[in-house]
């Protein structure tokens, strides 16, 4: 784990100012820690050794009070801005990751590291908060206070400094050694922990099912047994994980004790004066303090650092290049797929697909589940680059590869209804669009949305969020009818609909055809296929066959 990844500063602007602030406050803190120790040692030393009264040490005490006030202020400032910076940096990374992942397209999101992005963006990156708020400040203090105090001790009493300098490198060395020795064991332990935890959750998640079968009573003992096994496995891991903490505390506390004893013995022999001795005694724990905190916060922080690294990996995935040429008018352009293949985990789907969608035509893509119908649609929409083959726009002005066209320009001429309709929240009236109420009512009568709205008390003002999936599909169909887009893509529009709903879809497709729109239809029901001008059947790993209507 890299303690401070420079990429963090590059991708999260909010982190830059915060790191600068933390670094300056760290330097100030180092000065204040040293000042506090020296002032306290002088005041106390004079009083103990020389019997000085309060008025004699008053200046020291006054300065000490000032230093205490300053440290209070610095601590509060650090905390004030830590949360703020953490929230903003997490937000920046989240927005960046979501925007970038969305641009990488649906296929990337569905495979490899894609599915993890949702967890990363919603919960994972929150782990950066302890990193910013707790770990980073202590890391900075370890870099400022530790050397500053050590140098001052060296100036005051080289013997004590020598003891500390010998111990200091032992801290990381022993932590590393303990880590190495225990790594294998604790990984096995963690693995067992995860497995047992998953089994317990599996039983609990299956409770409704067990209950349905009347077999819910037995597993209570199993939940208890799994819990006990989980605890034993966890304790086995912790026994080892806590060893590094033990070593850290032993080394640091024992070295402070040794320094104290050393000072005491040299004071007896007059080799040292009391003020120096007290200063070293107060400073010695400060050498290790921030190091110990870094160690204590390490685990909390490492989750955040891992999340940040995952975020950088997404942000640094190159985006597919957008085209530069304007899109020709799709009302006069044929979309042509030639030899298109997409390789996925289940094979080549589609495999060597040829498809022409001419202006004003209704073309249906048919084929069994898994033959690549939806993938073919994604390729035709320019959301996915085919592994083999070409997609071209063939118009009166010539042929343009789809890859060269500005995607947003192309999409502005397309209305796409995916299997599950994606609608923005809002009143149905606003979501469907359309020129006026008359046009809306006419379209709604055709798609069956009219019936739905007649039954709803709010009518056209009904919120889309309140509708069922089938009803939302009718909203989406109405919107497609009302849109001006020359190209309409319908992916399985009859899923979620019964026979009556299906008639509605047929009527909609006919209306679209009458309106001169081009329709690409993904369908498996015969009634829908029958209303297409042409059906292109996809077979898994076989040549697609063109069928005349």
């Amino acid at each position, binding site marked *: 784990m890299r303690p401070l990844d420079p990429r963090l500063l590059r991708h999260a602007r909010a982190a830059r100012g915060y790191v600068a602030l933390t670094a300056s406050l760290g330097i100030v803190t180092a000065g204040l820690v040293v000042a506090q120790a020296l002032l306290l040692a002088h005041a106390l030393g004079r009083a103990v050794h020389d019997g000085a009264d309060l008025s004699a040490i008053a200046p020291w005490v006054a300065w000490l009070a000032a230093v205490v006030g300053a440290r209070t202020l610095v601590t509060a400032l650090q905390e004030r801005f830590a949360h*703020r910076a953490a929230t903003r940096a997490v937000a920046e990374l989240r927005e960046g990751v979501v925007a970038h992942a969305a641009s990488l397209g649906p296929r990337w999101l569905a495979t490899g590291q894609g599915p993890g992005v949702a967890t990363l963006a919603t919960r994972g990156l929150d782990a950066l908060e302890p990193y910013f708020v707790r770990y980073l400040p202590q890391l900075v203090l370890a870099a400022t206070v530790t050397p500053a105090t050590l140098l001052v001790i060296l100036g005051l009493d080289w013997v004590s400094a020598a003891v500390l300098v010998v111990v200091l490198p032992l801290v990381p060395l022993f932590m590393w050694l303990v880590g190495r020795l225990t790594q294998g064991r604790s990984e096995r332990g963690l693995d067992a922990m995860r497995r047992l935890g998953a089994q317990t959750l599996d039983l609990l998640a299956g409770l409704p099912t067990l209950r349905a079968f009347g077999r819910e009573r037995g597993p209570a003992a199993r939940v208890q047994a799994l819990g006990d096994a989980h605890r034993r496995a966890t304790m086995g891991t912790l026994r080892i994980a806590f060893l590094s903490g033990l070593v850290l505390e032993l080394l640091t506390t024992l070295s402070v004790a040794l320094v104290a004893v050393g000072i*005491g*013995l040299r004071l007896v022999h007059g080799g040292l004066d009391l003020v120096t001795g007290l200063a070293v005694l107060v400073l010695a724990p400060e050498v290790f303090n921030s190091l110990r905190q870094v160690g204590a916060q390490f685990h909390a922080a490492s989750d955040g650092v891992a999340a940040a690294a995952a975020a950088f990996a997404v942000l640094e995935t190159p985006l597919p290049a957008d085209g530069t040429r304007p899109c020709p008018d799709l009302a006069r352009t044929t979309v042509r797929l030639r030899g298109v293949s997409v390789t996925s985990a289940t094979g080549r789907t589609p495999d060597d697909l040829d498809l022409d969608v001419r202006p004003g035509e209704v073309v249906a893509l048919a084929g069994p589940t898994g033959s690549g119908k939806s993938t073919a649609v994604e390729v035709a929409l320019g959301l996915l680059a085919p592994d083999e083959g070409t997609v071209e726009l063939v118009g009166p002005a010539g042929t343009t590869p789809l890859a060269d066209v500005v995607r947003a320009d192309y999409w502005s001429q397309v209305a796409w209804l995916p299997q599950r309709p994606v609608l923005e929240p809002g009143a149905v009236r606003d979501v469907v669009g359309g020129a006026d109420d008359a046009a809306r009512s006419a379209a709604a009568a055709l798609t069956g949305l009219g019936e739905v709205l007649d039954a709803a008390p709010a009518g056209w003002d009904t919120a889309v969020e309140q509708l069922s999936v089938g009803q939302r599909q009718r909203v989406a169909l109405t919107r497609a009818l009302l849109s001006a887009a020359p190209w309409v893509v319908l992916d399985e529009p009859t899923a979620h609909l019964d026979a009556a709903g299906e008639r509605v879809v047929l009527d909609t497709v006919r209306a679209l055809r009458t309106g001169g729109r081009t329709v690409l239809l993904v369908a498996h029901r015969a009634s829908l296929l029958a209303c297409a001008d042409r059906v292109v059947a996809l077979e898994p790993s076989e040549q697609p066959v063109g069928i005349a209507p």
Partner: protein
Amino acid sequence: MTRGTLRRAVALLEVDRRRAAQAVALGTLALGCAVALAAVAAWLIARASQMPPVLTLSVATVAVRAFGIGRGVLRYCERLVSHDVALRGMTTLRTTLYTRMSQGQPAALLTVRRGDLLTRIGADVDTVGDVVVRGVLPAAVAAVLGVLTVGAMALIFPPAGIALALCLLLAGVLAPVLAAAGAGRTQERAAEGRARATASALGILDDAGPLAVAGRTHAELAALAAADRDVAAATDAGAPASALAAGVGQLATGLAVLAALVTGVPAVTSGRLSAVALAVVVLTPLAAFEATSVLPAAAVQVQRSRAAAARILALLDAAGPALEPAAGPTHGSPSTAPDAPDASPARPQDAALVARDLQCGWPGRPPVVRGLDLHVEPGRSIAVVGPSGSGKTTLLVTLAGLLPRQGGSLSIDSTDLDLVDRAGGAVLHVAEDGHVFGTSILENLRVARGDVTPDQARAALGDVALTGWLAAQPDGLDTLLGPDGRTLSGGERRRLLLARGLLSPAPVLLVDEPAEHLDPGTADAVVRALLTRHRDRGVVVVTHRLTALDAADEVIRLEGGRVAARGTHAALLASDRRYREDLAEESREDA
């Protein structure tokens, strides 16, 4: 959400008091070593500066070293004991949750989404357990150590003891209260923004393609940024209190040292305090605040855990107390109606499920099915059809006794369904979202009945047209299925659940949409097998496929929550225009 919430949840952990006391004792000793180390070191150095014979210091030099070792070792033991206490508590809480959920109101499980349930019994129980390790035990250690340190200090020099006590209260009470208030304010104001940010982010990622094509990606990203800005503003609202808390913690240490110095030095001048004791009184506070320094974080943890505790308790409260089977032969409870014809539980073999004028619906909402009569007994099969949203699934859940009925009567073998011990398993509801356990195919089928043989399992899988699928599995019936059946397709999963239902001994099966996700041929074969091959039991099937229903003894067509038509397939074809049309439509499509 009140203070009592967390206390109730923590009480459910049934923390072992002896072990908890042990953890507090070890923690107090560990941090006590640090305080003692500071005090003895101060004494050692101050005394040494008076150049006494070396021998007078020997006890102190040994003690300093011993405290140096003791701190680390004791702290290690304390961490182990406190984690053990918490883990035991979490297991107890999970077992309690499981037991109460398995024996309480069945509707409690139906109203919680699956993912939500997993969060509550997974992360939320962990969070409540965390309160013990990070909240309760550290607070107890700080309290005990604080009292001991103040007492020792007061013995040496009472004014310094009083000053230390006040400063410890600042750091150990005021700072945590401020920190909790700050975190609470942020949490409260940020909750809505966080939820919106999560929903926005998931929406954009789930529908990246459609949003891009519709040109709405930028608007959605702007909504995400706006939600994030609200969260940032909420953080700023809580930050001053958090900053004050951190400052107070730092200030308390300084004040304790200053107070000891200012009161102690005149006392030395006037001879009431020895010079060596002054060093002890002034330097000890530097180490005395370690226990309180973790308390602000502890208070924030308590704040966070409270929300988790509330979610767990809501689940428990919904489940209610364990339901006692009121009609068991040994339970002559007064709640059993005296005119109940037979108080013994239904004998599964001749069970008949009878509904009269049944009304079903979700609690607190109007009924979605009204006035339904139904009679199903072994050997009889009934199909329920109707457009989506006509209440078919609600009806099945009510027939299964999982949802309290809103009116009418419902009995099994002449005994009111409410009075029958559900563990008797007379009625089995094969839910569409049934759970596939992360174990082998055979073990998943054995959930129905512990003694299912491999041959019976194969036969059941054959009934649901999964023979080909089984043959493709690497280890046959012993093939492990991923957690929650993620390795299965929708259709395979649905049929596996159905096969499990077929293997159960329940005399009445209620099956929800067995044909979904299947091609027409397979769908009809599965429905037909279900309706015909199990004449030893009663079957109620909810389905949208009509073709295979000639095999059903009765078909009920629901529309708008009422029975629009009923009779045999042939009778409905003859009398019901809509049924005829729908079937014709279906056959046209399949052609």
